[in-house]
């Protein structure tokens, strides 16, 4: 399968005259990244990152953390091909983790006379979904924690595959908009959906490292004699179980000086009744709609909605987990000189459609985040952020925690971009 992706990439880049360029093999090396240190006070449960039901990346209590040390290394050839490796390290509550989060080759062609441009990616990458996480090393620009929707993307949606993008630049056609279409075909995202189902929506900046496994929370169905006894205690979101190819389609219209509207459909096409070493295939499909709009007086609106389903079955094709889920946020940001103010509200839910005993995945919640960031100097940003989450999740009863819970987090952070 991987060979097919490589062939597609080579075909598109070679066919588009990579090797005809004047200084085709001259190379530039570029390093970028982010350091993010936080002092945080969290009013929650044990974090979901440690197998709890807490919705933040940090456990209940006060702590000083290395919230992100991220770096991107890029080799950029003059022929349009570039190679990128992104690594991230985290030290939250004395748990230190380091690893690769993305690694890919990219080809960017030149626009033709009509303004059409091909781009291609090959490797491990994020499907283009998040409008928040486009700073170096997938850091979120305006807030410290990403929305629940994009926290999930960072946790469970990453692929090994190929992405082809065709863009039509409006400036060559006297149009005040650019249009682009992308198609990704991929493998290695078969267990996606398990963490969302079992710990629910979360709000943090934590990205799952490519080889990382995330501890599952405790619930009755995992006990001996119940349906999920054979499930491994950690989920490994980026593995291939069924040798089937998934796809992500995306279309975007960028209106010059106004904003952009995009929509996409993701389907990992996993066989839901496969299980290997305790990792199940989860057939996960969702649609996302994304809007970024420049409002009067320098306000910028960002809003995204994601809605989909996930299905995991027993080897004899009985539904074990069958969930629908939705998450959407709306954020407003405004910069006044070195000061930036951001407010975000969001709503999320999981609807549990199966009857598996001891595995209630139902969830309904809402959250609000307020961020103030001061740009101390060009690379240094000092932020304070408050997040409030109010949710209903019956699964918390499996650990004797309240079904209705309000969680809060106050963070002071220093971020350095280089």
């Amino acid at each position: 399968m991987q060979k097919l992706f490589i062939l597609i990439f080579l075909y598109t880049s070679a066919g588009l005259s990579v090797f005809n360029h004047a200084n085709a093999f001259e190379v530039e090396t570029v390093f970028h990244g982010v350091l993010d240190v936080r002092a945080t006070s969290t009013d929650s449960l044990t974090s979901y990152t440690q197998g709890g039901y807490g919705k933040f990346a940090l456990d209940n209590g006060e702590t000083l953390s290395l919230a992100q040390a991220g770096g991107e290394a890029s080799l950029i050839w003059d022929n349009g091909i570039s190679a990128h490796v992104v690594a991230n390290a985290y030290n939250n509550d004395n748990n230190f983790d380091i690893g690769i989060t993305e690694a890919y080759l990219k080809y960017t062609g030149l626009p033709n006379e009509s303004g059409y441009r091909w781009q291609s990616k090959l490797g491990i990458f994020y499907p283009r979904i998040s409008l928040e996480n486009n700073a170096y090393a997938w850091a979120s620009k305006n807030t410290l924690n990403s929305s629940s929707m994009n926290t999930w993307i960072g946790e469970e949606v990453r692929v090994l595959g190929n992405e082809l993008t065709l863009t039509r630049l409006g400036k060559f056609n006297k149009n005040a908009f650019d249009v682009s279409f992308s198609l990704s075909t991929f493998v290695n995202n078969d267990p996606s959906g398990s963490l969302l189902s079992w710990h629910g929506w979360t709000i943090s900046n934590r990205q799952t490292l490519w080889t990382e496994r995330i501890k599952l929370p405790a619930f009755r169905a995992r006990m001996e004699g119940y349906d999920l006894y054979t499930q491994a205690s950690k989920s490994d979101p980026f593995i291939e179980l069924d040798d089937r190819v998934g796809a992500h389609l995306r279309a975007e219209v960028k209106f010059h000086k106004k904003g952009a509207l995009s929509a996409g459909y993701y389907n990992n096409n996993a066989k839901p009744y496969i299980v290997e070493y305790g990792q199940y295939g989860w057939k996960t499909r969702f649609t996302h709609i994304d809007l970024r709009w420049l409002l009067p007086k320098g306000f910028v609106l960002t809003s995204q909605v994601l809605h989909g389903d996930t299905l995991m079955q027993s080897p004899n094709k009985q539904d074990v987990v069958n969930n629908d889920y939705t998450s959407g946020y709306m954020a407003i940001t405004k910069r006044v000189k070195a000061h930036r103010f951001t407010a975000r509200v969001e709503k999320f839910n999981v609807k549990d459609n199966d009857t598996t005993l001891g595995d209630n995945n139902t969830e309904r919640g809402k959250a609000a985040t307020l961020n103030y960031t001061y740009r101390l100097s060009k690379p240094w940003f000092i932020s304070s952020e408050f997040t409030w989450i109010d949710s209903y999740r019956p699964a918390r009863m499996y650990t004797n925690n309240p079904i209705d819970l309000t969680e809060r987090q106050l963070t002071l952070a220093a971020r350095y971009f280089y």
Partner: protein
Amino acid sequence: MFTKLPTLTLYQLKSVILLLLVSVSSHAYNNDTNSSNSLSINVLNVNSQPLENMVVYVEPVGHTITHKNVATLEIGQQNKSFMPYISVTQLGNEVAFNNKDNITHHIYSPVGKSKFSIKIRSGQTLVKNNFQQAGEVSMGCNIHDWMSGYMLIVDTPFFAKSDKNGQVEIELNKSGQYKVVVWHPQMNEANNRMSKVINVNDSMSITMQLLNPMDEIPTQKNEDDFDFLSDY
């Protein structure tokens, strides 16, 4: 095709800029036998207001001009934009692309015989001297899509851009018939131009007024003002 210039010292840079200024300001030579006729052109928009940065060039009709307006045209890449947005030069002249930003730019033009593509590293100047054809060269940056610049290559030594009063002064060294052309990529006329044929036998002033409103000039600004976005 491209020549890389060595890194200049500040002093050298100042001298180069000074030289460029001198050569740009003396764009109309007077080395022919006839007396000098000063042609003053006033460019106005549809509402009779002066238009700045419009390219005006004057071509002889029925006679030829032999001298060349030799000057290197400099097109800078500064603050992730083309500086200036509009440039004009005579066919055969060198064009120096000068990246004043601290990042790499990938300048290209996708159309016609003047098609080109160059990557320019921070602080680098690349000189291109093989433009083959007069006409409009629309340029972009393949890393920063909002960047947009235009160069007009003309086949005459008489050209200039209008000042803030919409004014252009051109010294013609020969009496005779001339075609005065005003060009701008956002001009709403056929071929983005309007022209007038005039007889010049003395210093004279003419007005060129647009018939339609101009299209909006691109701002060359990224809509996202965050400095640490992953470009790739």
